[in-house]
Structure formats: structure tokens, C-alpha cells
């Protein structure tokens, strides 16, 4: 009897938790299928499937361009930070040299940086490089939060690989560059997928730099475009459009996260549990 009761309690707790976690997304989908005055009637179940918000979103702003921008920025950020971090991780994880510990902790310190603390200095750097209102400026500035954790996670991962892996390669007289690309890179696959995904998500979701370093509608990334969707007045926000846009950019991300959930959670927890 007691076991049945506690089983029921567990089930109720789980259902309540699931509703709390998932209801906002469900309600966004529900809203995105409504239009006109229907929007202002609260419904808990789908009453109609009206796709006009999904049509309008592409017409009223350069939303396709915004999505392309986000994809370009996030992909470039992933490739660039993985390339920089992999070589750095080889140096930090496999070679003993003076200043190694100090460097590692400095890099960890950078990951604790509040982004706003570098805003005016970064503004100047981006202007001097001619990257203002340019996707290149975003790709460069995003390195401040993707590099530290990719370097950190890849370094811990590479340090834990056995010495024997390298010995044969060194005996054969292979250069360190060949060792990294031919010996380590294939072994680092899982860690690179996890950190690459985390970097992709971070870049896809970033708002402060994207808002500050771009000016025109055509250069905006998705989060800024969604934040700045406005109606005729402040009190007439087109909620149908906002929710349709939100669903469009969120669903692929959730699919990605769920498809790779094991690796992602492993990547997320690697630093915390080991550290």
C-alpha cells in the first residue's frame, strides 16, 4: 500500500514538473496557430490551425535573412573555436611547460567575464577592424565566451588520453601538427561534438553583442530580430508573429539538443564533476 502511494506521489510530481517545463512552449505553438481577434481569447487546447502568422513572418521583415545570419555566425563560431581550441588543448594537455597552470586559470577566468565589462573596448576594436554592423564582428566577439570552455573541456579530455597513443607517433618522428590532426583529432570526436554543440547553442542564442554591434535589419541575428518585432504601437505587439518566429527558431534547436542529449549532458557536467 505504502509503495503504491509513494508511486502515485512520484507520478504526480513528475507530471506537474513536466507541465511546468513544457507548457510555455506548448502555449507558444498554440498562439502561433491563431490570428486576429482569436489571439486575445485564452484557449488551453487547439481550436483552429491558422497558418497566416507563419506566412506573414517572412513578408514583414527579412526573417529568412536573419535565420541565414544566425546559421552563418553560429557555424563559423563553432569551426573557429574548435580549430583554435584543439591546437591549444594539445599544448595545454600534452606538453609540460612553464606557465601552463597560470594560462589554464587565466582562460577559466575569462569564462567568468561579464560580457558588458568589455562592451566599450570591444566596440572600439570592432570599429577599428571595420566590422561594425557586420557578421564578422559577431563571429570574432563570440570567441570571448566560446573559446574558454572549448579550450577547458578539450584540455581535460586530451590530458586523460593514455601516453602510449603518442609514443609511437613520436618515435616515427611525426611533427606535432600531424600528431594533432592524425592521432588526436579522431579520438577527440565525442568531446568535439559536445563542445561544438554547446558553442553553437551559445552563439545562436547570444543577444547583447548582437544587439549592440549590428544596426540594420539585414545584419541582425534571430534573437535580435525577434526581440525587435513591433506592431503599430507599443501596445499592439503582433503576438502571433512573435510566437511563430519563436517556434521556427526553437524547434530545430530542441531537436538538435534531444538528438545529442547524452553527449551534451556529458559535456555540460564534465567540467563540474571533475573540477
Amino acid at each position, binding site marked *: 500500500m505504502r509503495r503504491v502511494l509513494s508511486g502515485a506521489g*512520484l507520478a504526480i*510530481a*513528475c507530471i506537474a514538473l513536466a507541465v511546468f*517545463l*513544457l507548457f*510555455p*512552449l506548448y*502555449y507558444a505553438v498554440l498562439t502561433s496557430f491563431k490570428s486576429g481577434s482569436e489571439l*486575445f481569447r485564452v484557449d*488551453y487546447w487547439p481550436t483552429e490551425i491558422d497558418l497566416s502568422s507563419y506566412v506573414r513572418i517572412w513578408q514583414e521583415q527579412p526573417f529568412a535573412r536573419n535565420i541565414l545570419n544566425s546559421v552563418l555566425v553560429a557555424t563559423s563560431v563553432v569551426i573557429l573555436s574548435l580549430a*583554435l581550441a584543439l*591546437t*591549444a588543448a*594539445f*599544448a*595545454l594537455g600534452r*606538453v609540460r611547460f612553464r606557465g601552463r597552470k597560470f*594560462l589554464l586559470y587565466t582562460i577559466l577566468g575569462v569564462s*567568468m*567575464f*561579464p560580457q558588458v*565589462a*568589455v*562592451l*566599450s*573596448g*570591444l*566596440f572600439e*576594436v570592432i570599429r577599428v577592424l571595420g566590422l561594425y554592423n557586420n557578421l564578422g564582428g559577431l563571429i*570574432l*566577439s563570440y*570567441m*570571448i565566451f566560446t573559446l574558454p570552455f572549448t579550450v577547458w573541456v578539450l584540455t581535460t579530455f586530451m590530458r586523460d588520453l593514455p601516453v602510449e597513443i603518442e609514443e609511437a607517433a613520436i618515435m616515427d618522428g611525426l611533427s*606535432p601538427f600531424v600528431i*594533432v590532426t592524425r592521432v588526436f583529432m579522431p579520438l577527440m570526436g565525442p568531446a568535439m561534438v559536445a563542445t561544438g554543440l554547446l558553442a553553437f*547553442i551559445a552563439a545562436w*542564442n547570444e*543577444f*547583447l553583442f548582437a544587439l*549592440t554591434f549590428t544596426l540594420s535589419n539585414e545584419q541582425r541575428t534571430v*534573437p*535580435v530580430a*525577434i*526581440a525587435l518585432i513591433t506592431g503599430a504601437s507599443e501596445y499592439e505587439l503582433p*503576438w502571433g508573429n*512573435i*510566437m511563430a518566429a519563436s517556434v521556427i*527558431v*526553437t524547434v530545430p*534547436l*530542441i531537436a*538538435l*539538443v534531444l538528438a545529442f542529449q547524452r553527449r*551534451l*549532458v556529458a559535456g*555540460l*557536467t564534465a567540467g*563540474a*564533476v571533475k*573540477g
Partner: protein
Amino acid sequence: MLKERSISAGRKRAAWLFLAPMLVVLVVVAAWPLVRTIYFSLTNATLVDMGRYSFVGLSNYLAYDNGRWYGVLTDPQWLASLRNTLIFAVASVSLETILGVLIAVLLDASFPGRGMMRAAMLVPWAIPTVVSAKMWGWMLNDQFGVVNDALMKLGLIAAPVAWLADPTLSLVSVILVDVWKSTPFVALLALAALQMVPKDCYEAARVDGIHPLRVFFQATLPLIGPALAVAVIFRLLDAMRMFDLVYVMTGATDSTMTLSVFARRELVDFQDVGYGSAASTLVFFIIALLTALYVMAVRLDLDGRRR
């Protein structure tokens, strides 16, 4: 022997070569901009022409003139944003930690559907913050929002509540949305730590007839403590620099403005690079100080336990 030494010297040279690109990028996007921001905070530069400015010393921070105090440190709006940020950080991180551990304990038990629950936890975390802010902004809408509708149907409130317009409630709303979004992160880290606790530890306690709550507080919690401490510092740092959620949900209003929102407004909207940089620099030092204090406190605590 000689060959070995030359190999190791070669490797060291290669190591620095391999580090160089990453270090150059970090200098360009982190170290140099930080130095420049601190430097700008001592000037009266504006965003229109960042090259023309003169030195004003510390007067962006604090200055006394004609019987009045000036500067960020005496700015009532900055003080309000400091208060908001601290309340936000302490409240949201405490709630997220407590709820996160509870959820982790719940999911540590094996039951059918556990994998689905764990997947569901990733959903709020995966949704972009701006989208979360918009979704909740719509749900908390005072006239057409589903939250007011549901609470009224359940008879919990008599009239619609202005969740985002009321000065006190708007900060509470922002905290709740952050709890919704970030509790899963804490729960996942806590769960990973819980699963590393040896199961025979629970078995022994059960055989000895020790109350589960006592086992939790005296065995489980200390064992997952270090992992939890790391999760808390990550969350605390994130909460102290909070920008997007507040900016999108409530804009730059006094009742919810955070340190980051204040600094960006001075810098970009008011084009005052000197004043804005002073505010940015203060964010940096406040967070650095809190981090140092936290790390010290946690280490002291751990040492005390060991003794």
C-alpha cells in the same frame, strides 16, 4: 638522452606555436577590450567619436561639485540596479539550487519514463533566452495572458494581476522565469553528481534503519557538495551579469533594471562612453570580488568539514 631532450625542446616550441592563435584571439576580444573599457571610464569619450576625449580622472565614478555628489556610485538609478541585481541573483540562484537538488533526487530514482523526464528538462534550457522572455511576457500579459486566466479560473486571484507593470511583481516575474529556465541546468549537474554516489552507501543506511532525510542531509548532500558548489558559482556569475531576459521582458525600467542593462543604456542609448564604461568596470569588479569571496567561503567550508 640528447635526442630525447631535443624532442622535448621541440615540443615546447611547438606548444607555444599551437597556443599563439588562441591567445591572440583572447587578447583581441577579452584582455585588450577590458583594458580599454577601464581606460575609457576615466575619460569623457562619447560613442559618436571615440577618438576625441579628455581625461576626467575618477569623476565618472564619484565627484563632488557645488555641494552635490555626482558619478555612477551616487546615481540613484545605478543604486537601484545594484539592488535589483543582488536580489535577482540571490533569489533566483537559491531557488534554482533547492529545486534543482529536489528534482535531481526525484530523477535519481529509477521509474518508467525517467528518460523522457530528463529530455523534458533540457527543453527550457535549449530555448533561446529572448524567446523565453517573449513566451513568458505573453503568458504573463495582464489582459490576455494565460497565467491570469488560469489563476482566476482556479479562484486563486479575483482580478487580473499586472505581472510585468507592477514594480514589485515585475522583479518577482523575472526571477520566476529565470528559475524556470535555469533550474534544469542545476538539476542536471546535481543528478550527474548523485549518480556517482556509491549505491552501497544507501544500502548500508537502509539496513541500519536511518531515516532517509538524515541520510540525505548527512551523507548525500556533503558528497554532492563540491559539484553543487560549481553549479552555484556558474549560476551566480550568470545571474550577476543578467541582461537579455530583463531587457526583453521589462525593458529599462527602474524596478527591474540590472547592472548590465544600466551600463549598456548609458553606453549605447545615451552614447556616454565614459560614464557607461565606469558602470561596466564596476560590474567587472563587483563580480570579481563576489567570485573571490565565494571561492574563499567554499574552500573554508570544505576545510572545516575535513577537520
